[in-house]
């Protein structure tokens, strides 16, 4: 690839990275809402949605260089996967899930620092109830 094409590629990648930040913010806000619902209602039906969002962030965030967010999302995805996929009896707790979401929120918060708009506030970990 010649220098001009390489620069065009890097410029386009930078544009996509900026575009991805708004998606990252939306995903993390959705995760926070779902975690709040899980904590308040012990609503197991939200776990597949949390799993999908964590899976999505696990694959996409590092593509744009947001490795810590990706790592936190992978941890949460692996925590929930046995419950969602139903392969083995799950002992996942609401507290575990909320803490996982908090780790994603903290990592994404560093990435989004300086961007316009506030990321959703903390989930507030109160529950220790088992949901599996």
């Amino acid at each position: 690839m010649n220098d001009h094409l390489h620069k065009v590629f890097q410029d386009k990648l930078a544009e996509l990275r900026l575009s991805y930040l708004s998606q990252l913010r939306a995903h993390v806000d959705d995760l926070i809402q779902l975690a709040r619902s899980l904590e308040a209602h012990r609503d197991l039906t939200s776990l597949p949605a949390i799993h999908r969002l964590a899976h999505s962030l696990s694959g996409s965030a590092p593509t744009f260089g947001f490795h810590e967010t990706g790592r936190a999302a992978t941890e949460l995805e692996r925590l929930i996967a046995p419950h969602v996929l139903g392969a083995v009896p799950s002992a996942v707790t609401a507290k575990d899930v909320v803490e996982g979401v908090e780790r994603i929120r903290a990592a994404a918060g560093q990435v989004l620092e300086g961007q316009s708009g506030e990321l959703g506030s903390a989930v507030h970990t109160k529950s220790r109830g088992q949901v599996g």
Partner: protein
Amino acid sequence: MTRPRLQTVLLVDDEHDVRMVAKMALEFFGGLRVLDVPSGEEALAIAAEERPDLILLDVMMPGMDGPMTLKSLRGGTQTAKIPVVFLTAKTLPEEMRALRQLGALYVVEKPFDPATLATEIESVWSRYAQ
């Protein structure tokens, strides 16, 4: 019989920004023609119409997911033999094995490196084409 060089790839991923990075990487680094769609349903239609050499298919998508899409492709007369490569976030080994058992040629793990994605896909194609 030796198959021709890889030319056209159909890329299926519901996440727009990730899809654009993959498309750009395959075009810039691999010189490939890349068709891209955000859903399994659209993939079925365009695959039958365009007959791409290979389909790069995201696993987890809303609606028709990757495995469902692969099953439908295999059931279509126009699309039954188009090789499919899954694209998925790094997952557990047993899940990777299960994906391969569905009939995919290969599984590309996300996050992928844009600089090497085309080489990875062309390497899979070379093994398939022999």
